[in-house]
């Protein structure tokens, strides 16, 4: 038996500190009160270009952030949103104030952003993805011609339609089709659905996504839109639209002209600077009933709105060690401290977590700079002070899956190169690819010190892996059921003979997306714990909601040779893949069809209940968000490795030579290739729309899905006793 170890600062971490951290939840922020609407004069939402003259640096940084322009044109995001609409019959698209849709006789004329509180599941569904990605544009749909139109039909076609004649997959466009305009500002749709922008098109405000104004017009949290009146999820923010711009400084310098005023509202400033500001979108709660965890909207009238937690990042931070003083830095470390600071390029810290001596970048180190361009931004050229400023790169673990020319054609000719060389004046790489790789390198550490010291031919020995996440949330986070981090482990003898491997990939054909032979690329291969092919649906007329037309269930689902996750979790077996990926699950009920056939070609129907991993957030009815690594919590995984017997070695003509070498490393995978292949197929010509929607295909997967291998590693040797 051993005792579990958590972190300790090497020298100055005291019992008193521990007790304080546990027995009283120390206020993470100074109480500030709620945000309010603004009393300043109205101002239309501004394109980022209007902020550029005075805030060049921030503009440039934000431009390369995936949460600004890229996310709106992302083939994966658009494909995911399309696939959810195929399954539901268009229910994820927004409705607006003039909607004539009804739900059981009740008008449905508000969407997620304009419903506060949310009392109908359909309100939550309406604009479910769009609300966080483009809240301002969605809200404008109530008062002007919507950028993303209301659908004229919802649900199955014909008599069963929920609205109009039913959803039409053949005319359905991805969201990104709506974000381009002509030189007069009129919407310009691509000539083909999902295709390249029309000649002469320009990115609109809708293409800019999370702009300067989205954050700097903040009024505060919209508590009644959140399910627990705490500002988590559902884009629960009050977004003002005035000349009052909220920045991080308590005594901002007066702005030249009347373009905007710098807010002096302390509650708004504090909110903007707090980690809580991020909660509204970095908890994502899908309005599907979770069959293992009942959660409902607690607001008056909202009890029928149930959900499961897709992205749980903000909750993880809220209740984790970094929203307290019980962490190696002894102070609250906010989202901004890692994603808007010079982290991880500002020196290292040293501390201990469990058995591991950690060297890791220091968070919350900010550059000194001007907050605006001197000489152009203040009245009478009033001198600007040097301040501690934040970066607007918002670096995470995502990079665009588009070429530079595609990015520039959709988002403007100044869109930066993902691989742009060089560093900025703060010493941060321009390249988002470089930044995300460095961020990943700071996310996790592993050790092998608990591994058995020796073994024998034909014997079994234990490799013990200790893993610790250093992130403010679990690792990985975000869309953590698809974002994938895993441990690649090998045991070799002193001559390099491979005795054991886990977390490996094999180059293989993928006939479902046209790769009929191995292509020499390992980045597009799935790890070997399960083999799955997700049903992409088919073009079937008339259209109907559900899996019959639209798939989402698994056409193939079988265990692979490296089946660690299930064996470890459910059986407690010390073997197989160590996978830090949460899991979406579909609980099939008695009588449900799995969507595949038995050996005789008959549909497999469930007699009892059946739990199966699903790769579709829309199809999931429960989730396991505890497979990712908890921050600062040492977690142990054992591998029981058996060596070949002498007879087997003789048959192989091998002599094992000691010592044995155990190597473990953590790899990061952008998305599981099988998930991207599902998106490719369901939005492809054989999917429910019957047309190529030009989002993802095998060529794009091959070109842009790049794994980051070896983000941390550990080695140990094991004596081979004769």
């Amino acid at each position, binding site marked *: *038996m*051993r*005792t*579990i170890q*958590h972190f300790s600062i090497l020298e100055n971490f005291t*019992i008193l500190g*521990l*007790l304080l*951290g*546990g027995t*009283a*939840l120390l*206020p*993470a*922020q100074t*109480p500030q009160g*709620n945000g309010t609407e603004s009393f300043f004069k109205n101002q239309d939402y501004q394109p980022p270009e209007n902020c550029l003259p005075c805030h060049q640096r921030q503009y440039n940084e934000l431009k390369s952030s995936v949460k600004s322009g890229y996310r709106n044109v992302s083939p994966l995001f658009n494909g995911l949103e399309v696939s959810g609409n195929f399954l539901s019959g268009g229910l994820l698209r927004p409705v607006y104030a003039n909607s004539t849709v009804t739900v059981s006789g009740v008008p449905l004329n508000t969407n997620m952003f304009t419903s506060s509180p949310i009392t109908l599941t359909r309100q939550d569904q309406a604009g479910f993805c769009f609300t966080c990605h483009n809240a301002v544009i969605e809200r404008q749909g109530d008062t002007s011609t919507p950028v993303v139109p209301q659908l004229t039909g919802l649900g199955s076609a014909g008599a069963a339609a929920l609205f109009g004649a039913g959803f039409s997959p053949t005319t359905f466009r991805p969201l990104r089709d709506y974000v381009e305009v002509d030189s007069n500002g009129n919407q310009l749709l691509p000539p083909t659905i999902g295709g390249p922008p029309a000649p002469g098109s320009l990115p609109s405000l809708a293409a800019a996504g999370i702009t300067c104004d989205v954050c700097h017009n903040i009024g505060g949290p919209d508590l009644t839109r959140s399910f*627990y009146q705490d*500002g988590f999820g559902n884009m629960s923010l009050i977004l003002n639209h005035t000349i009052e711009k909220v920045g991080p400084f308590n005594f901002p310098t007066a702005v030249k002209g009347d373009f905007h005023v710098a807010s002096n509202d302390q509650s708004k400033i504090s909110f903007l600077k707090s980690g*809580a500001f991020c909660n509204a979108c970095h908890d994502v709660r899908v309005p599907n*009933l979770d069959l*293992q*965890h*009942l959660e409902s909207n607690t607001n008056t009238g909202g009890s029928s709105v149930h959900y499961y937690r897709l992205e749980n990042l903000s909750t993880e931070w809220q209740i984790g060690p970094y929203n307290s003083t019980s962490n190696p830095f002894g102070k*609250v470390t906010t989202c901004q401290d890692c994603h808007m600071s010079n982290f991880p390029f500002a020196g290292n810290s040293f501390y201990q977590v469990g058995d591991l001596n950690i060297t890791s970048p220091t968070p919350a180190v900010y550059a000194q700079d001007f907050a605006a361009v001197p000489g152009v931004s203040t009245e009478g050229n009033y001198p600007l002070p040097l301040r501690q400023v934040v970066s607007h790169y918002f670096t995470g673990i995502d990079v665009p899956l588009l070429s530079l020319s595609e990015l520039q054609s959709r988002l403007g000719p100044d869109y930066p190169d993902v691989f742009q060389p060089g560093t900025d004046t703060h010493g941060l790489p321009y390249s988002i690819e470089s930044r995300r790789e460095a961020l990943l390198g700071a996310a996790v550490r592993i050790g092998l010190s608990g591994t058995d010291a020796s073994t024998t031919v034909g014997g079994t020995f234990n490799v013990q892996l200790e893993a610790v996440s250093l992130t403010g949330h679990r690792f990985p986070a975000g869309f953590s059921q698809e974002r994938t981090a895993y441990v690649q482990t090998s045991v070799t003898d002193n001559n390099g*003979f*491979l005795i054991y*491997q886990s977390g490996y990939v094999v180059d*293989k054909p993928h*006939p*479902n997306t046209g790769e009929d032979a191995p292509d020499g690329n390992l980045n597009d291969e799935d790890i070997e714990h399960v*083999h799955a*092919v997700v049903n992409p649906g088919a073009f079937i007329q008339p259209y109907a909601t559900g899996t019959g037309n639209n798939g989402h269930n698994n*056409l*193939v*689902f*079988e*265990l*692979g*040779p490296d089946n660690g996750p299930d064996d470890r*979790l459910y*059986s*407690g077996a010390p073997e197989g893949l160590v996978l830090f990926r949460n899991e979406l699950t579909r609980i099939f*009920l*008695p*009588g449900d069809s799995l969507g595949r*056939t038995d050996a005789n070609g008959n549909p497999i129907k469930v007699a*009892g*209940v*059946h*739990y199966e991993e699903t790769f579709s957030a829309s199809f999931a009815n*429960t989730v*396991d968000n*505890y*497979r990712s690594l908890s921050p600062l919590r040492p977690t*142990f995984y054992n591998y029981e490795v*058996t060596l070949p017997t002498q*007879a*087997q070695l003789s*048959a192989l003509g091998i002599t094992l030579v000691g010592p044995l070498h155990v190597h473990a490393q953590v790899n990061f995978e952008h998305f599981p290739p099988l998930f991207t292949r599902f998106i490719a197929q369901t939005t492809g010509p054989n999917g429910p729309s019957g047309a190529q929607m030009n989002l993802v295909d095998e060529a794009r997967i091959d070109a842009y899905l790049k794994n980051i291998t070896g983000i941390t590693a550990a080695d140990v040797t094991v004596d081979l006793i004769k």
Partner: protein
Amino acid sequence: MRTRELLPIFLLTLAGTAVAQTTTGTTTTPGTYIPGTTFQNINPNYPIANPFYFEGKIDYEKLGITTPSNFWEYLQRGMHYQDDLFDTGDALSDYQTALSLNNLQKGSCQLVTASTLTGTDTLPATLSPPPCMFTIRLRLAYLVRQTNPAQAIELYGEVLQIDPQRLGVNTLTAEAYVIMAQQATGAAATTAYQNAIAAYKAELALSPVTQAFTALTADTANNSKVHWELAAVYQTLGQNANAVSELQLYLQATQWHSDVYPWRIPLAQSMIAQLTAQLKAPANSTITREKK
């Protein structure tokens, strides 16, 4: 004070934090909102069954459990003992308690079947008794399979009653039968091996290799682990033709997936050659495999 000596205090502290968050998190009116503090007043880490209990493992200190009070809490503590503290004795005890409180024979749990659903094929929000849990049974079975394979087999049987389509359980059953066979002699051993073969075949039947499957994956076989282990059973029983057949399927199944023990692939080729030679000209030569 060394780190290890601080640990019990720290665990308690973490549990205290969870409790503090549970009880002091406030659902507030807008005027009292405090960024970073205002948070739901229910512990988000403690799932409310609906009607299924969470089949997974939650970081134990986040649950705020002082003493387990039901089968699910005993299961969670058992997994904490086993995985975090490497204390299999206490884990075993907790799994047994969990099983006694979620027990099919005693009627303290139920199988969810078609008859459980209401007239509109709807699952009731609450079930009394609660659904039987498979994790309790799988965890307990794995710990006892060497010392009491018969109990393990019985527990695996209950898992298959809960979820007949669950992958891997028939393999675990088969492995328990193999252990039973290795601990037995004579007819009892042979019977156990025959049962193992049946269980392995049941596993293969759950993910059949069909034309559609091959068209999607390029695989002509799957479940390499099952074929490898099944070949070993056949070989033990002297059914070398069947062993060769299974080894060939093993090679097909590993073609695009390799194996965690990649040396098994050339070894299988070698074994096929030797066994085939034996089949053609029976001799006394033997091939040794590792023992499971």
